[in-house]
């Protein structure tokens, strides 16, 4: 069930009304759990079996880890949980990627062995809920969390429909207490939530879907000029932010209408001045998960500044890239960001470093914009060989037509981004100005009526 479909709106309306009519927290949780499975099973019924298996195993594993005082037993249960979850993820998401890569290597070495690719359909959201359930068992193992008695509450934590298919990735420590507490709703909450959902729909249907057209076309060209590639990448950078943060806004708004508070996932990532700053602003729930469960266990910044640190940071970001998609361009994108983080760190611009003067800030921001955009071109390309060919053989400006189209794409991307920039300005400088906020919401609603496409594209992060 897509957030942008009429089916979802009807489903959400009925669920929300029934939810607030129910007298107890327990009955509300049961309704939400049923609704979440309906929401997920709507895409494909067998997805429910997968998520239920992960839920049951982690529920049992959590209890067993907490119940045992023997370190060996605790570790076995933790490893079982990790192995099961990563096996599911590995099979559904990465199996064909590895087989395909093996076939490529085999061909390169001149062998005739070719593995048949499997007809596997990637269950949407598996990368997100797998990380959520993993954090539960790991936190219990680390004695940072108590296992839950109620299977309903835990199952709801795993499958809560607003954030099930594309996050934000909630931590058990933060979200389970909300599930276990009674919820209330008041007018201000409703107003904020609907405004948030409206903003999400606007970002997705008006901005992301419309700029996606240019990015898709340019990245399908045989040999675009550098300028055209830059314009296409700019369009994609706006598309991916509007698409993903739009989804998050709808998820957070929907959750808020049900009395839950989901974690903030984006804080104006394109205002970042360093790579560390970027990852503190972009997909925050994911980057903090990777920091806590991959980067720090690998040694983090404690390993020093030299090669060991390079190994840790690049490995962490490589895993992060692979999480985004089963293709080499995502891995390279992750490694590229790892290399950026390392270089900035070595030069003393890592961590919480901020430029001290306005010109320095401007320079750092511009430089980071260039790095980010280049990263998105790696992320968006359908093959690394295409990108390397375009970069090595492409002309700078191209023909007059290419130049004109590049300018046109930049103009349209800027025009579609304008309302979002205005919203950032209002939120930053006039957060209490209800008139401006309401006028922006009205304009967004009217623009939504005009610019929403008849057939909306899927959310980009559904494929991850």
């Amino acid at each position, binding site marked *: 069930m897509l957030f942008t*479909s*009429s089916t979802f*709106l009807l489903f959400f309306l009925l669920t929300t009304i029934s939810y607030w009519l129910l007298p107890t927290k327990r009955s509300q949780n049961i309704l939400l759990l049923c609704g979440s499975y309906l929401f997920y099973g709507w895409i494909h019924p067998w997805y429910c079996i997968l998520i239920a298996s992960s839920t049951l195993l982690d529920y049992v594993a959590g209890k067993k880890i907490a119940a045992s005082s023997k370190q060996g037993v605790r570790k076995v249960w933790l490893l079982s949980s990790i192995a099961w979850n990563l096996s599911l993820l590995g099979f559904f998401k990465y199996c064909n990627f590895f087989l395909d890569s093996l076939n490529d290597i085999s061909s390169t070495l001149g062998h005739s062995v070719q593995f048949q690719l499997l007809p596997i359909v990637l269950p949407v959201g598996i990368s997100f809920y797998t990380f959520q359930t993993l954090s539960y068992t790991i936190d219990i193992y680390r004695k940072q969390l108590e296992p839950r008695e109620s299977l309903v509450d835990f199952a709801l934590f795993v499958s809560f429909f607003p954030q099930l298919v594309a996050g934000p990735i909630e931590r058990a420590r933060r979200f389970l207490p909300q599930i276990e507490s009674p919820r209330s709703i008041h*007018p*201000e909450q409703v*107003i904020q939530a609907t405004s948030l959902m409206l903003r999400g729909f606007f970002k997705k249907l008006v901005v992301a879907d419309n700029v996606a057209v240019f990015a898709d*076309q340019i*990245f*399908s*060209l*045989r*040999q675009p000029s550098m300028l*055209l590639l830059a314009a296409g990448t700019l369009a994609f950078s706006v598309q991916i932010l509007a698409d993903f943060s739009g989804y998050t806004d709808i998820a957070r708004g929907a959750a808020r209408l049900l009395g839950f508070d989901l974690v903030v996932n984006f804080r104006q990532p394109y205002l970042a001045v360093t790579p560390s700053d970027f990852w503190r602003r972009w997909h925050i729930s994911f980057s903090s998960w990777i920091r806590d469960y991959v980067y720090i266990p690998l040694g983090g910044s404690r390993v020093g500044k030299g090669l060991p640190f390079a190994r840790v940071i690049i490995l962490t970001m490589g895993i992060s890239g692979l999480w985004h998609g089963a293709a080499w361009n995502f891995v390279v994108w992750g490694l590229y960001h790892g290399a950026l983080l390392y270089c900035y760190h070595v030069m003393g611009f890592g961590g919480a470093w901020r430029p001290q003067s306005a010109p320095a800030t401007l320079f750092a921001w511009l430089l980071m914009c260039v790095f980010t955009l280049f990263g998105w071109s790696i992320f968006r390309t*359908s093959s690394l060989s*295409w990108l390397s060919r375009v970069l090595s053989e492409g002309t700078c400006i191209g*023909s*007059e*037509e*290419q*130049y*004109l*189209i590049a*300018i*046109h794409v930049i*103009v*349209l991307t800027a*025009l579609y981004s304008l309302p979002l920039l205005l919203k950032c300005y209002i939120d930053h400088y006039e957060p209490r100005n*209800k*008139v401006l*906020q*309401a*006028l922006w*919401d*009205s*304009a967004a*609603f*009217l623009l939504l*009526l*005009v*610019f929403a496409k*008849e057939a909306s594209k899927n959310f980009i992060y559904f494929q991850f």
Partner: protein
Amino acid sequence: MTKKDYFFGPGIFFFTVVSCLALFGHGSHWIPSGALLDTTIQEIQKANAQIILIGNSILDHAIDENIVSEELGCTTYKHAVPGSASASWHLSTKNILPKLSQKPEWVIVFFRDDYLSKPRYRVYDYYYKKLLLLTHTPEPLLEQLAYQQTESPLADLLYRNLGFFRKRRGFRNSFENYAKYVSNYLADSNISIRKASSRVFARVNMDPELLQEKTTAAERHAEADQSVFQNQRDTTFLPAIISNITSQGSRPIFVRLMRRRDGKKEPQAAWLIQYMNELKQYLDAQGIPLIDLSSVPGISEELFTDGDHLRIPDGRRIVSSEFARRLLPLLENGVHCRSGARVYPNTTPTINSAN
């Protein structure tokens, strides 16, 4: 925070939105003008047509009614509404035929692919306005098949009730034109963006692998979208079109027109072959002829100006003659053309099946 504070923001929101929407009015969904209807009726009466050809611009490019009239010795009138599809053909047959004092002997409907059973195809925006020209009255069947029980009930509800929503294509065009103007100004170029776009994104400039992937995906999507004819026919205008014609004492014929891709030596899509077979069975059961012009000797890809439209006069002349040749035996069985028909030697008339 007081209650007044709570509702201040939403109050401004609703006031602004409602005011803007009100500027464009509720706008009844259906404000028929019937302008095209009236002129068409007058022209058909004047021509005293024995055969009426109904279709869209593909018909307009493919068939020269003068050639057909000459070859058959019948008066033929061509009612080709550019961009029209089954909803338009339903309105044409329903609203034109009853008003004619002398009914035509044959009403021939030209279609491509599965247009006959796509009731929601081309009923919005520009096409919506075209439909309004073909009626003076409310059209319950059109309302039911084209604008209700659709994949996006919300969009349909808005379309029926908000003038603002129906004007959105116009707003989008204005926005895009403005952006084009700014782009031309910034690039200091006089080339039209449309022309530049068609050159830059020409098929020859696209990455062949990616293009193939996209084409395959689009075809897969299109195939998934095509339920075969048996599943569609009762929710389409086809039974109504037949009934509109037969109830006036005329006889229907359906003609499938060729497209550029039909000129290639590639097999047709499986769903389309099945679709045409089922359509033929359905029409055969009612004694209605189906002429398949998807393959016409002498017509190759070069005789098309684009994917659908034949070149005038070369392509049109060939297809018009072929159409008349295939139509002739049918007319001899049931129609008495006023000036007699020419008989073709050495031809065995056949009505092709889908493939």
